[in-house]
């Protein structure tokens, strides 16, 4: 089904109008910028309801098959919706793990039963998903996962612990990487991948307090938790390959996500606005030439990311190092966010010392919070240091560190 430009334009108009009309009003509390920052129940329910509303309007999972709750439409339409959501800065889709990792994985590799059981609830946000990859003692070393899944007949018995399980308290399911075989020649060989229920005996979710002072992440403890072997996805012992495929969904290298944006980023336009408000010697800070110089640098950086993404779609301009842009976008984006948020603090003058909750904090202290939260992306999903290794080795062909 190929659409004409006119059809696409008309659809865009329709979508634009719907979001303008339906975008939620300011709830009166600070909203999180991504699913990893959902810290309170009021934030969670607000976002869950919003996702359901978007889904019910037909704007989520548009390219997913109809039989599992999708709409079976061209991906181009979903892309229009996603872009419009970003443009209008409406809240993000909170069931991020479900929509972007578990969903595509199940659609790709799952059995018919799994598709039927899991996909509809992912889209409607009825069934929240969380992720069980990282462990407390092996932060960046995913292949070294130690959580034990010991076979016992038709069941596996889980023992160990996973960390950084966002939405863990609300999640019905988890995608889990666990060790089903000890002492293999190669640490990657003993791993298996599961789709497991969260609300069973032996699973306990304990909130972790973040450096922001807020909650949102959890540590999940497994003590003789029993799951059926039908929870396996992919073959037993091939969990590493499944995990890698799943991470490829995350990094956006492969398509198939349900659509809808997953993260609100702070943008340089907001920092510029801040610089117009903040004072330096009784004048707007944006008149200070060194501040202007820094702002221009951030403007160029933000554009670099957009233009990299545009260029990455032109094959002839990616001949020498074809994976350079896709493999570096996480590093570039996360470090940009950290530095830009940090700069935004110093712009606020003495008032930068306020924090979330003080009436005089600029924009409710969200810059302070988003500077701290920016570390979740420079650390999580492979630290920036590890990203440098990966790019150096896989894009430039440098020897392993």
């Amino acid at each position, binding site marked *: 089904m190929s659409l004409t430009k006119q059809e696409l334009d008309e659809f865009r108009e329709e979508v634009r109008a719907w979001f303008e009309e339906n975008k939620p009003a300011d709830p009166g509390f600070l909203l999180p910028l991504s699913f990893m920052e959902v810290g309170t129940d009021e934030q969670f329910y607000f976002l869950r309801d919003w996702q359901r509303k978007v889904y019910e309007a037909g704007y989520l999972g548009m390219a997913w098959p109809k039989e599992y709750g999708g709409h079976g439409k061209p991906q181009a339409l979903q892309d229009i919706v996603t872009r419009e959501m970003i443009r209008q800065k409406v809240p993000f889709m909170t069931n991020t793990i479900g929509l972007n990792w578990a969903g595509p994985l199940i659609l790709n590799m799952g059995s018919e039963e799994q598709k039927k059981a899991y996909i509809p609830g992912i889209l409607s946000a009825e069934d929240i998903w969380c992720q069980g990859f*990282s462990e*407390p003692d*092996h*932060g*960046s*070393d995913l292949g*070294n996962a130690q959580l034990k899944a010991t076979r016992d007949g038709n069941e596996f018995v889980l023992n160990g612990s996973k*960390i*950084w399980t966002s939405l863990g308290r609300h999640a019905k399911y988890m995608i889990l990487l666990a060790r089903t075989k000890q002492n293999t020649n190669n640490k990657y060989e003993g791993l298996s991948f599961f789709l497991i229920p969260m609300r069973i005996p032996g699973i306990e979710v304990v909130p*972790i*307090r*973040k*450096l*922001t*002072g807020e909650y949102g*992440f959890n540590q999940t403890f497994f003590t003789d938790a029993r799951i059926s072997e039908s929870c396996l996805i992919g073959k037993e012992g091939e969990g590493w390959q499944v995990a890698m495929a799943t991470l490829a969904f995350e990094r956006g290298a492969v398509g198939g996500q349900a659509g809808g944006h997953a993260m609100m980023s702070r943008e340089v336009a907001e920092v510029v606005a801040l610089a117009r408000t*903040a*004072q*330096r*010697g*009784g004048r707007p800070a944006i008149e*200070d030439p*060194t*501040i202007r110089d820094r702002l221009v640098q951030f403007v160029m950086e933000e554009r670099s990311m957009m233009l990299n993404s545009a260029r990455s779609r032109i094959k002839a301009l990616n001949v020498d190092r074809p994976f350079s842009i896709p493999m570096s976008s996480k590093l570039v984006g996360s470090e940009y966010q*950290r530095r830009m948020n*940090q700069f935004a*603090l*110093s712009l*606020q*003058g*003495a*008032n*930068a*010392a*306020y*924090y*979330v*909750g*003080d009436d*005089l*904090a600029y924009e409710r*202290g969200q810059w*302070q919070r988003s500077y*701290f939260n920016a*570390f*979740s992306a*420079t*650390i*999580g999903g492979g*630290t*920036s*240091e590890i990203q*440098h*290794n990966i790019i150096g080795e896989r894009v430039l062909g440098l020897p392993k*560190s």
Partner: protein
Amino acid sequence: MLDTNKKLTITFGEEQEQLLDIATSFARDKFPMDKARARIAAAEDFDRAVWDEMASLGWLGIAVPEEFGGSGLGLAEVVTIAEPLGRNLAGTPFVSTTLVAQALLKAGTAAQKQEWLPKICEGTIGALAIVEPHGDWNLAHLDVKATEAGDTLALSGTKTFVTDAASAGLVIISVSLGGGPALVLLDKAALGKASLEKEIVIDETRRSYRLKLDGVTVPRANLLDQAQTAAALKHIDEAACLLLAAEACGGTSGVIDVVVEYLKTRKQFDRYIGSYQALKHPTVDALLALEAARSHLYFAAGVFGQGEEGEIAVRMAKALSSDALAFASDRAIQFHGGFGFTYDCDAQLFRRRGVWCEVQHGDAAYHRRKLADLIF
């Protein structure tokens, strides 16, 4: 203009050496990291027992002349206390009280000095109210007003970031009076009439208050010497910069210790993470930034108050030390990996302290701009 040929020496006297030694032990004993965390959660703004000990050690009178009960030394000696306290993230009214004494010394009337300086030396807490909601670093940007009404002054407006105000025996406030700046003293009684709101600030080791002055009146006698206001504001600004620089240098040293300890003990991919150059080299850069800032700090301490040379030195110390702490503590969070993202990791405490030290009394870019005008 700077004479780059001039040989620069750091004066560091015997008293400084002794005080630094004592304060280093004191801070280590009284403010271990678990204590700093406990202080954050504590109901009282400060630890009375520790404060009394600081007073009895004579630390509140270090830079107060002997005639007022002090030891007649200077801010150079105060730096040797502030730096180790900063290293251990101590939360005490030491700096604010010292600055109030400095304001009195610079612009207080004979009667004010006679009344308050001896009390301060004995432990009366002073708070300084010189920042306003506009957040501008220019201390002459004053929206708070004092209006003369016979023998009294009626105050109006709001002061922000008045640290330790709730425990203070006196507050010194900058106001606009008849179109010009002035300093006014509020004693506990007058303070009781003002509205004091606890602020939520990024550095949780600080106790900061918003002081709403509408409806407060004080006797005219509470005015400091108006002829000295400008000089006093400049003096307070520079003194605050010097002590913030001391705290920031101390903090940088403290956070380097924290991250080095982690890098030496944490393993990833079967190697101590401190063996990775990606973590080791930036940590060395943090150390180099500390060493430079600290050298500037003690130089600035030595030439403090010496006209333009003193001003240049203190601005450099402030700029370099706040950048050093920002860099060291930001990297410390990152290098702790997942643990760095938690509230339990001490790196964040230093990062929060770093924001405070940076954005009070001007960030590095602000001071560099002032320096350019002084130097070129």
